[in-house]
């Protein structure tokens, strides 16, 4: 159970993939995040990631795209099919390097900013980020699996897309200000993995990528959350023993208390 479950649950967390931009693309776009470190304690309910920066073009030409990426992981998408009256998971398709969290924010719809090729090349949408790692079963729709992956993660709040400014009924958006200043805000739900994230900012002009910037965001546990997690990972055997002892004392205490009353 152990290894299989581990593989299932924590399928290889690794650094988010950033496709190599062409040599003529500068990586000096002035951008930063409001909080480089987000702390997770016992009252954590998720948080907001704020990315701001300046379009260096004096006349403010160009479009801004901000992508917040979590670590990549493997994922399997299966299709339910009725077999002898029962719904059975069939035809698994494996994906590699799927982002565990992916939010793309732009000042106007992404398809108006960049070509389909650019979106695919720079992995500007969640579907473009996943790499197919197994054969598509005969007769199945390849796009169906990829779309399902995005749809399922979107339903969990892990994949988000916003074009235009944030408003009270939306959980994120990108706003352009005077003087080329821009600010992107996105909600990081509590179920997003705790890890190292990256905020990638892209400046497009006339559909061409001009410059980029990558800023890390560290999400880390603090206090008791951190102590428990460290014990569970670094002293896992004793952590298990402690849990069992806690269970036994809880059981013993309850039976003693209830006998007296």
């Amino acid at each position, binding site marked *: *159970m*152990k290894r299989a479950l*581990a593989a*299932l649950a924590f399928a290889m967390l690794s650094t988010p993939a950033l496709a190599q931009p062409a040599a003529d693309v500068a990586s000096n776009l002035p951008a930063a995040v409001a909080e480089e470190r987000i702390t*997770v304690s016992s009252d954590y309910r998720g948080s907001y990631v704020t990315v701001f920066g300046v379009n260096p073009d004096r006349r403010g030409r160009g479009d801004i795209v901000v992508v917040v990426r979590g670590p990549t992981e493997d994922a399997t998408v299966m299709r339910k099919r009725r077999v002898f009256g*029962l719904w059975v998971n069939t035809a698994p398709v494996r994906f590699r390097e799927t982002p565990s969290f992916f939010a793309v924010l732009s000042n106007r719809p992404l398809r108006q900013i960049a070509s389909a090729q650019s979106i695919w090349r720079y992995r500007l949408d969640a579907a473009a980020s996943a790499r197919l790692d197994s054969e598509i079963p005969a007769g199945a729709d390849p796009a169906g699996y990829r779309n399902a992956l995005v749809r399922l993660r979107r339903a969990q709040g892990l994949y988000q897309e916003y074009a235009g400014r944030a408003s009270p009924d939306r959980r994120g958006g990108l706003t352009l200000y005077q003087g080329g200043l821009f600010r992107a805000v996105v909600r990081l739900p509590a179920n997003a993995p705790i890890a190292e994230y990256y905020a990638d900012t892209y400046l497009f002009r006339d559909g061409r990528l001009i410059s980029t910037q990558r800023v890390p965001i560290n999400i880390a546990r603090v206090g008791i959350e951190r102590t428990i997690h460290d014990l*569970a990972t670094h002293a896992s055997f004793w952590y298990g023993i402690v*849990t069992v002892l806690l269970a*036994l004392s809880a059981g013993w205490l309850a*039976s003693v208390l209830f006998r007296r009353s």
Partner: protein
Amino acid sequence: MIYLPIAEMPVNVLLVLLVSGGVGFVSGLVGVGGGFIMTPSLIFLGVPAPVAVATGASQIAATSFSGIMTQTRRKAVDWRMGMLLSIGGILGSASGVWLFERLLRLGQLDLIISLLYLVLLAGVGGLMLSESLAVMRGRKAGSVTIFRRPIRGIAHNLPFRMRFPRSGLHISVLPPLFLGFAVGVLAAIMGVGGGFILIPAMIYLLRMPTNVVVGTSLFQVLIVSSLVVVLQSTATQTVDLVLAALLMLGGVIGAQLGARLGAGLKNEHIRAILGIVLVIASTKFLWDLVVTPPETYVLGGGLW
């Protein structure tokens, strides 16, 4: 709301206490660990399946230990039988872990789990319900037809016989070992303690008196679930201490209340209640297998 450090999600404290208290109540009442309700409930609350399975085991350990304390005072634990069942259970759960990985590699683990739940819960529940109803009907009719245990079964004819004074049995050690093993395998695959299979098997296969069955099965469940907690936390690090503490709190209180109510009930009533609970739980799995799902794709293999 409190954030769980291992499950990496916030949960509603009151909701978790309510669920674990309810599960604990049922487990104290009828002497099962309650994992077969707890694990699916946790997953329903959004806890990742591996964390639910591993952490649920620690709650089962707490509840069963609290139950054993009560049952010991009532002298309702056959320690010798419990040890035999536990030895089988330890070997069984180790084999179950191996089988779990094989099934996972075949890609049909969740189907096997659902079918196992459906067949076992419905089968065992239906059996207990019909049998206890028959006893109750017999009482009402005036004819005192107490459920008759045949004096000799297969357990009497196998070699390596041993005396079990508390149960009043003189049977071979092989059936209890095998039973513990089988339950251990199922427990590891299904992420439960296994009491709901163990109890009827002890009554119907080993012919143990009903009054020692609950306490003795709790002993085996305690040993196996404690082992699962240590194994899981060492191998997968999926035991969430904060969630475990919440589950234990709700679970042990519920179990004590349940055990108290259970002491004042007749055996056939307890069996009828367990039967109803099992049949209701099985319909959930039937529902999931038969009803057309709103989303035809599932992510990550979807254990449950």
